[in-house]
């Protein structure tokens, strides 16, 4: 991230220390994670100790300190989705992609995340991929849903059975 880009974010919030959360959110939205250099730069410019910035960055769920995959697979784990079998959906995604929630595939194509509630309970269990909702999910639908976002040429499941 260029320093001029960080500067424009800082200016947006009047370089106020109290706006640190909003500043980090804007960096996260742009880069999909918080690069170390950006955090150091912000700390220096706003006179905030780096440990305080890290404390905030690791406290809130919205932030990631590691780069993310091209596609974010977000499985809703809200109560309504849970009672309709969301856990089995996550397990199946895990089996298909070989990653657990919070992890990114080696080819940097997918990041798997769980979310506490997307508020689309009527369609539960719900999976959101890059903001597109896939409703009434079941373990059996996982493979077909992920297929559209795969980068590898085979475009098939991890178990080799397309």
């Amino acid at each position, binding site marked *: 991230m260029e320093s001029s880009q960080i500067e424009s974010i800082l200016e947006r919030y009047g370089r106020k220390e109290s706006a640190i959360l909003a500043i980090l959110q804007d960096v996260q939205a742009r880069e999909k994670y918080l690069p170390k250099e950006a955090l150091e730069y912000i700390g220096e410019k706003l006179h905030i100790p780096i440990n305080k910035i890290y404390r905030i960055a690791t406290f809130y*769920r919205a932030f990631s300190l590691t780069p993310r995959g091209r596609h974010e697979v977000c499985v809703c784990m809200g109560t309504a989705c849970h009672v309709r079998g969301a856990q089995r959906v996550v397990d199946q995604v895990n089996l298909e992609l070989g990653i657990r929630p919070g992890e990114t595939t080696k080819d940097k194509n997918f990041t798997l995340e769980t979310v*506490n509630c997307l508020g689309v309970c009527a369609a539960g269990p719900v999976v959101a991929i890059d903001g597109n909702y896939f409703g009434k999910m079941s373990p059996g639908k996982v493979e077909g849903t992920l297929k559209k976002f795969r980068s590898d040429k085979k475009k098939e499941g991890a178990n080799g059975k397309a």
Partner: protein
Amino acid sequence: MGRLNSPQELEKYRAEVLSKRDPNQPLITVCGGTGCHASGCHAVVDAFKKVIQEKAKEDGVGLRVTGCHGFCERGPLVVIHPKKVMYQRVKPEDVPAIFEETVLNGKIIETLLYDHPVTGEKLATEEDVPFYKKQMRIIFGNNGSIDPTRIEDYVAVGGYRALSKALAMKPEQIIGEVKKANLRGRGGGGFPAGLKWEQCRNAPGKTRYIVCNADEGDPGAYMDRSLLEGNPHSVLEGMIIGAFAIGSNEGYVYVRNEYPLAVENIGIAIRQAGEMGLLGKNILGSGFDLEIKVSRGGGAFVCGESTALMASIEGNVGEPRAKHIHTVISGLWDCPTNLNNVETWANVPLIIDRGADWYGRIGTEGSKGTKIFSLVGKVNNTGLVEVPMGISLREIVYDIGGGIPEGKKFKAVQTGGPSGGCIPESLIDLPVDFDRLTEVGSMMGSGGMIVMDENTCMVDVAKYFMNFLKDESCGKCTSCREGTKRMHEILTDITEGRGTTDHLDLLEELGWVTREASLCGLGTTASNPVLSTIRYFRDEYKEHIINKKCPAKVCRALLTYRIVSEACTRCGRCAKTCSVEAISGKAKTKKDQGIPFKIDEEKCIRCGMCFEACKFKAIDVQ
């Protein structure tokens, strides 16, 4: 439209807006809430735009994308005015026919109507549909008729009239009216709002803040989001009245960043209100100033707690503090701060506009007005429902919710989010209000209502909430940090077949310690899901512990999958879907009888894929 400098100018503007609207002209409203968005309402809107452009000869047909109508199960929803014909599950392909038949010729397309689940009768308008019939939508009702991005729509339905009225009252009178109405906080606590306002007004100090808590973190609850998305001005109007009564000139809306549309719509509303002189300096010429800012949350559940939320607005980690000194005395930047939930603020204009006497006639002795619930889980009509306080759970689940899908048996309702409890079938006639829910070991919370059926395992539900709470505990109090973790470990043991009879006593003891020794609402209520399920479903726990069985067939480790050879047609689908090659056998062909399939229990990971794949119910789960 320029600035409005007095209540008279607001009324003049309202008359002007209304004069341009002919209630008899055709108007198409499409629900644009997140639920309908997920079921594809944007394609429907585009199709309407196209057809209106092509076919409407004059500018006579209006199209309005509104906020959430509540009946998310049946989205995308389309209502055609003036007859208010309601079409459900509308697809873009249906649009030309709707336009031709209903909009232009007033004919009803029967196939798109909602049919009564019991009688099969086709119901043409929202009022006819049982889902809406028993509701009392005084807060939520306008969502379906206004475009949240246009302030004139809100003004047209009487918006900001209460503000005019309030500005002519003395602040003490406004507080008196809110106290008389006995408005209780809708965020969960149920603290009387009027009293809070009074304490904040009387607190020493020059600067006072008001905050709208829109950090709706309870999984399965989305009513606050729908209000902010669908009718943001009603929340703003409540905040302006409150700020005037309290004597505050600066306010914040703290909203979850996971709700992008709500963030956008409240931002638009603040800008529009500012441009028209309803916010900012000298509101409606009264001399009263108020600035409102939006603060986005960082995805921490604990920030729904008032002191944690304020710490977060200040740019700190969202950890709660002890409330020996309440936030009305010392809150944001150590100044008196009044925080209320979205729905609480949205109630204020109604109380001022129609009066506390009118408001007091709705609800029960201790809980006045209505409450919006998000009715979700194993229920036919998923959606947002607004009901008068005191309505029974049975009416909500069966009359409004349409009962349990697939004719399954009702088991429990979970209310109050992760800090709430499960209410069993024996208490289904319980009148729903703040005090009664607390009496039975649950709570109102922000209004999530998750219906569970015979296929829901109560131990698993308790484990689910404990997992949530252990992740979301900020870690400040040992009792909460360690207590939730230990309870989760024990519940995991029980669901994986390692439970012992001592575990139940231990859970109850841990639950007690966590409740008694933690600072904030998260910790003090964290044991509710465990204690309430043990209280009402002890037998189910024992079944897991003693017989190592999960009666609801949810806890994987306690299940065995088996193929019933008599029912197996040897199609081979199960073996194909099995990702660990635990199913052996040979598929039947024309020449070959094949070999019956069977599951190797050692290899089976109990993912349930074969169960889902089998079309002949040949897979038995025990």
